[in-house]
C-alpha cells in the first residue's frame, strides 16, 4: 500500500495503482476520455493531466503509478490550459452539431465539453468525410464522430482478444476499422459489442431493432434473456454447456423453470426469435442446447440444494397440474407452504400430457420431471374435478386456478355438429388417454397453428390415409412453427393456406368441406377478422372427419363463481393474478388464453410469488443453483465465426415417423459444442465497467479536505 495525497486528501491506495482510478474511487473527479477502467492506459487524450510534487510538467494520471508519499494536484492554470487545448484539438475533426447525433445526452465527449468549457474557435475545423458504415449487422461505424480514444481497439484486442479493430490510415486521417475495410463478418468479428460499449461518442454504436426503445439497456444488450417469459439466464447456460458442464447448465435453467428437459423438447423458444445472432446468419439453436444439457444432467448441481423455507402452516390448493399449476406448486412448497394439486385428468402435465403429442414430447420425460414436484413435498390428487373453487377456501388459505384452456372452439357454420366433426382438444385428449378414436381414412383439419399441426400429424399416425390442413392465413403468416409445417409436408399432409371454411357437407355424417380461396385477410380496429374471398374458387374436399383446430378456451362457466372475461378467461386484477374472489388466484392459459409452456411456467412463478406474499411471505422465490462464477472476458479470435451455420437437429425420415408416436426429433447431439460456440456472448458486455462522468461527482467536490 502507498499513502498518496490528491488535492489535499490523503488516501491509502495499492502501490502502483494508476492515480486516475485512485482519485475517481476517492470521489475526486479528473476529466478523462481515452481511459477506461477495464483497459490498459493509453495516455493519448491528455485530459487527465495532474501535477506531482517534484515533477517539471503535468503528467497523465492514467499511467501515473501511485508511489508512497506522492503529492498530486488535479488542477492548475497550466493543467487547465493543456486540457482545453487538447479538447479543442479533439473537437477540430468532430462534427459540431451534437443534436443530430444518436448519442446525444449519453456522450462522454459532450459531458467533457460541459466540464472543461466551450472551445475558443481559434483552431482549424475540418470534416473528416468518412462514409458511415451501416452494412454490418448489429453495429454502425461513423468514423466522423470518432475521437480516436482507442478504447474500442483496446477492448477488441486486449479485453476480448479478437483483434478485428485497429488504427488505420486513409490519406492523412487516422481512423478505426478492419483490415482492408472489410465488413465485420469478413474480418472475423465476434459481435460481442464491447466496442460499442466502451465508445464514448457516437462513432461505434448499436443498431437496435425497432420497438426496443422501451427496454432497459440490459434487456437490449441481452435480448434472449428478455425474450424468455421466465427470463432464464440463457447466455450463462449456453456457455456452461459449451464447457460440457451440463449439470451446471441444467441448474441454470432450473433457477427459473423446473422442467428443463420438457422445455428442451417443446419450448416455443421466444429467445431464439430475439437472439442477436439471427441478425448475422441464424439464431443460436438455444432450445436444442438446453435439451442436450438437460438430457446429460446428472443433477449433481441442484438435487437436494436450493431453497426450502421451514413450514409456514399455510395451506394452498392448486387446481390443475399443468406447467403453470405445477410450477406454482413447486415454488410455493419451497416457500414453506403445504401444497395440494387437484387434477381432473388421470395424469399430471396438463396440455404437456394431453395436448402435445408424444412424438414431440416423450411421456417418460414428463414423468421424470414432474416427479420432482412430488419429491419436493407437493401432494397431487389426480382425476379430481373441482367444480367450485370457493368451497376450497374452507380448507385452504389460498387457491390457484391453473386449469388451462381445454375446451376447443367450434366455428359456427353449416354442418358444424354433424357426426365426424371433432374438436382439437377432445381429439388430442382422447388419443392421449388411449381411448379409441374413429376418424376414418380421410381427415381435414381446420386451423393453422401448432395445435392444428398436432392434430393433423396425430391423425396421420393413427392411420388416416389422407390428411389435409386448411387455414385462413396465407402460408407465410401461419402461426405454426416453420419446422412443424415443413415436417407435416414431409409426412404427406396437404396444406391449403388462405382458404375459408364455407360449410361442412353431409346429412347423416360428414362427407366433406367446402372452401373458397382468400383474397385478403386482415383485422379491423375491433380486432375482428375481415375476409375477402376470391370469386370462382370454390373447392370441395371429401372427408370422413373434420377437426376444428381454431383455438381453445378455459373449460369454465359462471358456476365457478369467478368473473370471466374475454375468451372465457378468468379475469384478474391489473398487474396481479388475483381473481374476483379474495384468496383465489389464477395463472397460465386460464388467464391469458393459449400461449406456451414457458409462458405458463413464468405465470406459475408469478402466482407463487404473489400467493406467498398473500400468505405473509416475502414473495422472493429466486434461487441460485449453479455456481456464480466470474467468466473470462477474453473470447479470442475465431476464424469464420460469423459464417458458422446453425446446426439443425437430426430428424427421423418421414417414412420412419408417420406410423408411430416415437420421438421424431433426435436433438443436435454432439453438434452442441459447435452450436454453443455460435453464441455471441452478449452478456459479457454487461461486465464492462461503466464510465465515470463529471455529473456523477458533482456535489461531492470539496469533501473531506
Amino acid at each position, binding site marked *: 500500500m502507498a499513502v498518496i495525497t490528491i488535492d489535499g486528501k490523503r488516501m491509502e491506495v495499492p502501490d502502483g495503482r494508476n492515480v486516475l482510478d485512485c482519485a475517481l474511487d476517492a470521489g475526486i473527479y479528473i476529466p478523462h476520455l481515452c481511459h477506461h477502467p477495464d483497459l490498459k492506459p*493509453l*495516455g*493519448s*487524450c*491528455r485530459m487527465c493531466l495532474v501535477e506531482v510534487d517534484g515533477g517539471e*510538467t*503535468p503528467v497523465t494520471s492514467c499511467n501515473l503509478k501511485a508511489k508512497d508519499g506522492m503529492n498530486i494536484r488535479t488542477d492548475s492554470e497550466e493543467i487547465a*490550459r*493543456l486540457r482545453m*487545448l*487538447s479538447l479543442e*484539438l*479533439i473537437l*477540430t*475533426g468532430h462534427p459540431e452539431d451534437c443534436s443530430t447525433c444518436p448519442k446525444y445526452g449519453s456522450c462522454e465527449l459532450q459531458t467533457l465539453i460541459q466540464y472543461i468549457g466551450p472551445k475558443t474557435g*481559434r*483552431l*482549424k475545423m*475540418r470534416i473528416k468525410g468518412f462514409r458511415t458504415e451501416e452494412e454490418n449487422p448489429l453495429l454502425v461505424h461513423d468514423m466522423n464522430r470518432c475521437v*480516436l480514444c*482507442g478504447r474500442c481497439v483496446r477492448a477488441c484486442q486486449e479485453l476480448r482478444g479478437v483483434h478485428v479493430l485497429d*488504427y488505420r*490510415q486513409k490519406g*492523412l486521417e*487516422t481512423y478505426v476499422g478492419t483490415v482492408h475495410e472489410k465488413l465485420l463478418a469478413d474480418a472475423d468479428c465476434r459481435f460481442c459489442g464491447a466496442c460499442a460499449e466502451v465508445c464514448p461518442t457516437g462513432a461505434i454504436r448499436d443498431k437496435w431493432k425497432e420497438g426496443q426503445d422501451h427496454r432497459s439497456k440490459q434487456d437490449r444488450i441481452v435480448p434472449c434473456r428478455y425474450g424468455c417469459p421466465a427470463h432464464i439466464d440463457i447466455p450463462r447456460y449456453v456457455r456452461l454447456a459449451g464447457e460440457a458442464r451440463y449439470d451446471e447448465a441444467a441448474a441454470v435453467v432450473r433457477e427459473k423453470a423446473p422442467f428443463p428437459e420438457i422445455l428442451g423438447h417443446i419450448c416455443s423458444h421466444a429467445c431464439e426469435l430475439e437472439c442477436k445472432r439471427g441478425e448475422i446468419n441464424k439464431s443460436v439453436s438455444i432450445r436444442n442446447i438446453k435439451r442436450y444439457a438437460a438430457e446429460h444432467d446428472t443433477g449433481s448441481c441442484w438435487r437436494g440444494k436450493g431453497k426450502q423455507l421451514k413450514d409456514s402452516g399455510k395451506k394452498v390448493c392448486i387446481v390443475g397440474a399443468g406447467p403453470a399449476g405445477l410450477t406454482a406448486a413447486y415454488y410455493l412448497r419451497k416457500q414453506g407452504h403445504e401444497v395440494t394439486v387437484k387434477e381432473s385428468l388421470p395424469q399430471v402435465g396438463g396440455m404437456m400430457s394431453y395436448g402435445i403429442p408424444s412424438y414431440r414430447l416423450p411421456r417418460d420425460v414428463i414423468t421424470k420431471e414432474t416427479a420432482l414436484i412430488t419429491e419436493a413435498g407437493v401432494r397431487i390428487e389426480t382425476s379430481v374435478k373441482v367444480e367450485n373453487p370457493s368451497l376450497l377456501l374452507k380448507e385452504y388459505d389460498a387457491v390457484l386456478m391453473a386449469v388451462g384452456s381445454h375446451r376447443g372452439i367450434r366455428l359456427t357454420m353449416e354442418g358444424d355438429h354433424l357426426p365426424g366433426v371433432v374438436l382439437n382438444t377432445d381429439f388430442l385428449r382422447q388419443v392421449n388417454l388411449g381411448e379409441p378414436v374413429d376418424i376414418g381414412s380421410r381427415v381435414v383439419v381446420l386451423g393453422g397453428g401448432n395445435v392444428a399441426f398436432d392434430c393433423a400429424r396425430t391423425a396421420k399416425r393413427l392411420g388416416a390415409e389422407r390428411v389435409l390442413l386448411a387455414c385462413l392465413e396465407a402460408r407465410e403468416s401461419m402461426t405454426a412453427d416453420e419446422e412443424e409445417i415443413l415436417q407435416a409436408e414431409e409426412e404427406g399432409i396437404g396444406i391449403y393456406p388462405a382458404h375459408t371454411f364455407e360449410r361442412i357437407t353431409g346429412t347423416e355424417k360428414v362427407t366433406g368441406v367446402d372452401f373458397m380461396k382468400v383474397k385478403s385477410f386482415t383485422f379491423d380496429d375491433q380486432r375482428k377478422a375481415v375476409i375477402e374471398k376470391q370469386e370462382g374458387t370454390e373447392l370441395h374436399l371429401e372427408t370422413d372427419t373434420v377437426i376444428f383446430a381454431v383455438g381453445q378456451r378455459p373449460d369454465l362457466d359462471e358456476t365457478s363463481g369467478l368473473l370471466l372475461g374475454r375468451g372465457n378467461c378468468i379475469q384478474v386484477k391489473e398487474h396481479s393474478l388475483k381473481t374476483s374472489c379474495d384468496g383465489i388466484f389464477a395463472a397460465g392459459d386460464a388467464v391469458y388464453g393459449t400461449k406456451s409452456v414457458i409462458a405458463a411456467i413464468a405465470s406459475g412463478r408469478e402466482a407463487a410469488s404473489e400467493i406467498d406474499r398473500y400468505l405473509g411471505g416475502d414473495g422472493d422465490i429466486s434461487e441460485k443453483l449453479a455456481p456464480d462464477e466470474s467468466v473470462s472476458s477474453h473470447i479470442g479470435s475465431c476464424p469464420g465465426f460469423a459464417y458458422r451455420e446453425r446446426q439443425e437437429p437430426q430428424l427421423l425420415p418421414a417414412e420412419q415417423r408417420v406410423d408411430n408416436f416415437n420421438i421424431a426429433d433426435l436433438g443436435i447431439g454432439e453438434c452442441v459444442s459447435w452450436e454453443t460456440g455460435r453464441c455471441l456472448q452478449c452478456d459479457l458486455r454487461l461486465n464492462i465497467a461503466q464510465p465515470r462522468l463529471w455529473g456523477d461527482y458533482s456535489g461531492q467536490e470539496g469533501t473531506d479536505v
Partner: protein
Amino acid sequence: MSDRRDDVMRVLSANHLKDYGVKGPSLAESFARRQASCLVVGLRNSDKSGVLLQLLDTQEGVNQLITGMESAALLLGAEKKILFIPEYAIHVKERIETFVSAAGIEVRIGLIDVREHEDSVICHLVTMLEIAECLEGTYEESIYVSVNGGSLKRVSPDTSVGDLIGRKEGKGVLIGNRIYDNHALEMNLEEIELDNGMVQILGENDCMIRLVEKDLLENRKRSCGKCVFCREGLLQLHAMYKDTAEGKGKNHYPELIREIGLAMKHGCLCSLGQNGAQPALGVLEHFSEEYMAHNKRKKCPAGVCFLKSVIYIDPVLCTGCMECLDRCPAGCIEGRPGYIHMIDSTECTGCRACIELCESKAVMETEGKLPKLPERLVKCGKFKKR
C-alpha cells in the same frame, strides 16, 4: 553465462556508455536497475533522414549490431530482440534480414510503437554498435554525423558545428530536428541534441516557412495517429505554416504555434510527436523576422513564396520533341511532333517538371514580361519574332 554478463556490464560501465543522444544515466546504470523480456532497437521515430543506417552498409557494422544486441539482451535478460527499420529504408531490411534473423533478431518495418513496447527496453541502433566496440576495446566517445545527407563521418563531440561544415556563411543550420541561426556554428556538437545524425546547411535561398511546412506535412504522414497532440497538433501547425507560406497567416498564429508546439513536446509518447514541432518552434525563435515578413507583409526574404512567375517555352529553342507534353502532370502543354510547344499558363501549376526535363533548355521561367510567343501551332524553326 552470468560471468559473461558481469564482463559486459563491467566494460559498459568502464566506458561510461550512454544510449544514443541521452544525457541522463549511463547504460550500465539503467540496465543494472532493469530487466525486460524484450529488447527493441531502432532509430528515433522522429528520424526522417536515416543517415545513421549507413552504419549497416558494411558487414562489420551488421556484425557489431548483432553483437551489441546480443549483449544488451543478455544484460536485460531479454529473450526477444526486435530491430525496427523505418518504412523508407525497407531495402535495408531486405539486405540484412537473413543475416540478423539467424542471430535471433526479428526485423520489423515502421515506427516503434512505444505503447506496445511499454515493458520492453528501447535502445538506439548506434548504441548497439558502440556496445560492440566497447567489447572489442575500440570504443571512443564520438558522434556520427552527415552533412547535407552525405556519407557519415565520425567526429569528436567537441567539434564545433562551424568546423564540421567547413564554412561559416549561410543563414542557419538544421541540426537533427532543430533549426538554428548562425550562432549555432559556434556550438559544439555535444551541446546539441543530434537525434538523427544529420546537419543540413540552410542557405539564403531556403525559405524557412516552406521548409517547415514540408517538414510538418512529412511528420503528419508518418504519425501513427494515436496521441492527440501529435495527430491533431501537427495538423494545426501544418495548416498554419501553409497559410503563412501562402500569405494567409493570421495574427494569433505565432502564439498558437508556440502553445501547440510546447504541448507536443511533453504531451506525446514518442520522439515523432515530441520533436515534431521543433522546426516550427525553431523558426519562431531564430527566424522570427522571416516568419513575420510572411505573416504580416506577405514577403518572402528567400524569394521562394508569393512569386507570380510564368513558365513558357522559348519558340526558338523548342525542338518539338513531345517530352514535356507527355510528362506534364497538369496536361497544360499543347503541341505536335516537330511543332513548337506551348504552355497554357492558366492551367499551369508551376511544378517546373518541364524545366527539369527539357534537354534543349527551352522551358523558361520569368517574373517579368513575356516575350512574343506563338498563338497557334507553328513548325519548329518557322516562328517569326517581331
